[in-house]
């Protein structure tokens, strides 16, 4: 067991977007019955077969570090949170599709995690304008996840998806919209909405998800 390599992935996002539920779902294959506030950081582990079925198959432990709190926390909380950001292999940014602020705050979260946040109070000097230069030299892969899609009324869904496309382009990240979950034998399959006018979205089977 010790011979398996470790992969550390941070799960970041505002309070109440669904990070703990997501992590629980990914690792325990069950829906989290009673979500409560995460104090500090909660870790969960998923055993993952990288490149399954090929001769290169390797089993990894994916550690999902779910860091609690909000972007506007006191600087003492931020400095303490920073200890969790060491040697990170990937970052999952979670935002709530029903709450625009949580999407806007993702910029600040990613900056904080990549240690580029220079001012302790978290006030971005560029006034919220996204600066691609900040991410140019970073090699950490990002994954954006939008939750609670089913809580958006039908007529607003198109707008939300458009906004998301821009958001994920800004981050140069992959994008998944979590809607319905089917827990099958071999893992978790996920349904995607295919809407006209959008480019063909990939169907992700989680067993095949790997980090490049």
């Amino acid at each position, binding site marked *: 067991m010790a011979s398996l390599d470790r992969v550390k992935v941070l799960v970041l996002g505002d309070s*109440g977007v669904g990070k703990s539920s997501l992590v629980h779902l990914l690792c325990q294959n069950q829906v989290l019955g009673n979500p409560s506030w995460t104090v*500090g950081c*909660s870790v969960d582990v998923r055993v993952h077969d990288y490149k399954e079925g090929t001769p290169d198959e390797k089993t990894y432990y994916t*550690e999902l570090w779910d860091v609690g709190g909000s*972007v506007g926390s006191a600087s*003492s909380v931020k400095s303490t949170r920073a200890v969790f950001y060491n040697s990170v292999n990937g970052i999952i940014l979670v935002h*709530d599709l029903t709450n625009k602020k949580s999407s806007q705050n993702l910029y600040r979260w990613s900056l904080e995690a990549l240690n580029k946040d220079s001012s302790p109070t978290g006030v971005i000097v560029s006034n919220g304008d996204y600066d691609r230069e900040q991410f140019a030299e970073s090699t950490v892969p990002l994954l954006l996840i939008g939750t609670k899609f089913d809580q958006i009324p039908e007529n607003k869904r198109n707008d939300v998806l458009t906004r998301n496309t821009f958001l994920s382009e800004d981050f140069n990240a992959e994008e998944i919209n979590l809607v319905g979950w089917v827990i099958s034998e071999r893992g978790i399959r996920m349904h995607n909405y295919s809407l006209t006018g959008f480019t063909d979205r990939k169907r992700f089977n989680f067993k095949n998800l790997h980090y490049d």
Partner: protein
Amino acid sequence: MSFFLDSVIMFTSQVLFFGCGWLFFVRQLFKDYEVRQYVVQVVFSVTFALCCTMFELIIFEILGALSSTSRYFHWKLNLYVILLVLIFVVPFYIGYFVVSNIRLLQRQRLLFACVVWFTFMYFFWKLGDPFPILSPKHGILSIEQLISRVGVIGVTLMALLSGFGAVNCPYTYMSYFLRNVTDSDILALERRLLQTMDMIVSKKKRIAMTRRQMYQRGEDQNKQTGFWGMIKSVTSAPSSNLSLIQQEVDALEELSRQLFLETVDLQATKERIEYSKTFQGKYFNFLGYFFSIYCVWKIFMATINIVFDRVGKTDPVTRGIEITVNYLGIQFDVKFWSQHISFILVGIIIVTSIRGLLITLTKFFYAISSSKSSNVIVLVLAQIMGMYFVSSVLLMRMSMPLEYRTIVTEVLGELQFNFYHRWFDVIFLHFHNTMHCLSLSSTF
């Protein structure tokens, strides 16, 4: 004509205050949340505007601006509207939003909100029984009845807040109470935290691997039901091992939370130490000493008031002028100066109390709100703010010279003002002592 002009002035100032309340809401309170229900924002800004108008009317009273009939009219109007908002509108919306958050009652939200509102009215009315408020001359729904109850709640809040401020102030401002925290302390704690996290991770890896092996072997741990299931689960070694490891993980997670909170605490203390070395920090430290002395004096006065059963008859301004005239022999125009000094004094009290309350409310809001409960909390804060300001008007009466008290007395009728001062002192003292005992026991 002058009445019309005065009304225009009042109205524009009210709109201005409404705008300030709106800005405060958007910039400070709700800066991390998305406003989905504009009702909340409107109600908050309206409450804020009404409270500020009240203070503005007091200032006008002292300055003698606007004609006295229009002042009186606006006082009455403002008071009625504020009472309407504080007693009818805000509690109803609080009930409505609380009910909306509960899944079960979603269907008949309005009905349940009305039920909640009636319960609130019942307790609000019952509140008046133990206090010397009811006088048979006035009817049920008169302004005196409502104001008196609002006054009781508001004065309690004021006393609690002042008590809290009086206790908190020396601890936050003065660096005497700061523990000495070095960088190595923080590093040691952080290392422990990371070690705990690593232990949690390794145990979870074992659990995950064991589960996976069991799954691959065809067993399903979670579906063991019935008699044979229990026998099976007892005899199979991995599962009991699993639950043992799970318990250890739970304990470690609790430990990690504690360590995290301790580290946050230490970091905050370290930052305060650094801040206290700056110029601003030293200034606040100095202020802290002053405030401590002031708080001690206030406690002393409160005790004396209660023990000797006396309520101050004259206000500080007249008293100060008396002292300067009689003992120091300085002669100056009493009327002229008393007006200006009381204006400045009352102005300072108003501004600091508004600012202090808003800052406290903001801190409180950040600490306890979440995306679900933010609406309810903002409305509760609006209610507190309204009641606080109404009763601060009641208490401010004592700080004003006699000739300016008339309008407050006229409008608010025959309230037992002395009672409120006594009540304030009692609550302040009790709360202050409790808080001090708690704080001291936690520091040492």
